């Protein structure tokens, strides 16, 4: 039972990060019908911005601000930096190709992905960056927390899970309860009709990139609180975020959340109960199975078109 609880906790931590990444894929796909494969690299840039922000704030051994402020500030810095990067990517890599055949922006997305990853490697080297959160308050984030049975739920996991869920709820409220959210949904439903109703499509698209990239930045920091990061980490993590989006139903916001969690649990249980060796293989088999048998995902709607 303890193993099950621990694996569930692992899956929840990982899944909440995947969900934040998947939301970025879904937001952009929902509006532009574009698979933004550079999204994983935006996530990676977020991890690096977080690392840089920690250094600016004095490092983890002797930070110049309280721990809670440090965590908040690095997350906000990563979100802001990634939002700007998202705007730049949209403006220079995707907007010129908006009316091109759909394979063109897809290839452009791959190009942007490699460009960002290898530019970061050239600029900052390939050495892993460790946030060293273990040194914050003498390891308190790892040793403090609460127990479920014999399983410790440490503070660092609580922070990751709670922060991810708060952001998902805020996004949900933004999309369903605000004017800009209504505009996003209208654009997603029918871009031409939305334009005719007076919605500024360009602004909505840019806003979707800002939101998605900011979430990727936040996911980057939450991930790197526990795991070292490096310049090429975005490719595999981004692919898993894409998988989560497909599993949940790409274009669907609740679907992205559900898909991220399903993928996190699947990966964790596969490692725990099936084989540590084959967990990545199982994850991508899951992707293929969904693409073949349920392409609309768990919560997505089948794409019915008039012929």
């Amino acid at each position, binding site marked *: 039972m303890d*193993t099950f609880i*621990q*694996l569930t906790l*692992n899956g929840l*931590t*990982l899944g909440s990060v995947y969900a934040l990444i998947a939301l970025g894929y879904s937001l952009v796909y929902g509006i532009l019908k574009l*698979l933004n*494969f550079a999204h994983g690299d935006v996530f990676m840039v977020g991890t690096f911005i977080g690392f840089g922000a920690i250094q600016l704030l004095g490092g983890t051994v002797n930070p110049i601000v309280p721990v809670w402020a440090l965590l908040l500030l690095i997350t906000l810095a990563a979100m802001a930096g990634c939002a700007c990067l998202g705007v730049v990517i949209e403006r220079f890599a995707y907007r010129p190709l908006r009316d091109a055949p*759909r*394979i063109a922006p*897809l*290839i452009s997305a*791959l190009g942007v992905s*490699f460009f960002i990853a290898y530019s970061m*490697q050239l600029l900052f*080297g*390939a*050495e*892993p960056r*460790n946030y060293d959160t*273990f040194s914050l308050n003498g*390891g308190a984030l*790892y*040793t403090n927390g609460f127990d479920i049975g*014999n*399983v*410790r739920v*440490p503070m*660092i*996991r609580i922070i990751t899970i709670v922060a991810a869920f708060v952001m998902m709820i805020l996004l949900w409220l933004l999309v369903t309860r605000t004017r800009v959210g209504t505009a996003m949904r209208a654009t997603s439903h029918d871009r031409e009709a939305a334009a005719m109703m007076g919605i500024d499509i360009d602004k909505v698209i840019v806003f979707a990139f800002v939101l998605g990239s900011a979430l990727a930045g936040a996911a980057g920091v939450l991930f790197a609180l*526990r*795991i*070292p990061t*490096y310049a*090429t*980490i975005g*490719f*595999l993590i981004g*692919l898993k975020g894409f998988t989560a989006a*497909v599993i949940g139903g*790409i274009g669907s916001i609740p679907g992205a959340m559900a898909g991220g969690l399903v993928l996190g649990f699947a*990966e*964790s249980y596969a*490692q*725990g109960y099936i084989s*540590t*060796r084959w*967990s*990545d293989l199982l994850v991508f088999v899951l*992707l*293929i199975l969904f*693409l*073949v048998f349920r*392409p609309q995902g768990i919560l997505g709607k089948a*794409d019915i*078109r008039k012929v």
Partner: protein
Amino acid sequence: MKRRGEMVLAFAVIVAASLASTAGAGSTVAAKTQGVSCKSTLKIGFTAPFTGGAGFLGNEQLSWAKYAVKTLAPKYGLKIKLITGDTPVEQGPAIAQTIAQKFIADKTVVAVLGPSTSGNVVASSQAFWQAGLAHISPSATRTSLTKGPAKSATPAFFRVVPGDYIQGPSDAAFMLKKGAKNVVLFDFQEPYSQGLADAAESVLKAKSVTTTRLSVANTVTDFSSFVTKVPSSADFVFFPTQKPGDAQNIAQQLLEQGKKAKVFGGDGSNDASQFKVPGSFVSNFAPDISGFAYNKAVIAGWKKDNSGQALGSFGPPAYLATQVALNAIKKACAIGKGQIKDRRDVVRNVKKIVVKNSILGGDFRFSTKSNDPLNAKFYIFEIQSDGSYQLVV
């Protein structure tokens, strides 16, 4: 249907792109030297990871190799230029083949230092052998490179540090001495960690220690689920990674999950700036060289050239490897009367080299039975509360 097709196509494109980006090197080119004057500038190639997770290792080795070339080559009457080839561990062995071809094609390269990792030795040794290039590693420790019926390195490969046939059993013996009854051993599905884990596991099993083997892909970054599989009763987690940050990560995650097992990292995790959870252990093929009085001048000289850098354990073997290479080149020049007529003359002389009062302690010479050092041993360090490494065995 159209949407499904697009997503399948997208997935296929991305997989194809990733495969293409890792495509490997070309075929072997055996470029025989036509004869190089020893009065001209000769080159020594140095192939190691200078970037990536093991970049700390290659850079430390390079600083010592440069210092050896700067201080020793003039004494031997040689003009030597060191050229480098970066092999990040994340890129796998294909890059080592490419770099080997680059060194081989340059007829003024008369010896090679490295490869620093075992996987890269396996990938490039055959090419070096065909080209007659001696390659002397300061850190490749996989046992089967030089021993056993299926030796994966060629007779042109030499190493100045002992192999895992000593490290694995030494580490296991230490864990036994510490009263280990239950040990979890990791490998990362590549030659270095598999060889080391195999060697340690066989000794532990022979002493009736309960062992669990976990095999993890080299790309895994979050070890949480693996840590979950570590039994609460485990005394040690043997973690022979080449990325010290990963050793730090798993040590943190063991604490996070309330597991009492201590992490025991191999020589690849020996980096005090990255792996610093107190109570953990690391082994290494080099002792603290400041313990040998005759090294005082060498250490002072190196520190002058590398101000602010700490004395590590990967660098000094690179100094020794360079010293061996320079001696072999000098001998080959003497035999060729001021010329290296064939790079194989260097290979033939490496094994004859004896270094008195070597930087690693005592006299260095190769074993007559294999291209390994004679009478070498491994050293074990415990990480202290201030993050420093203290020699315990």
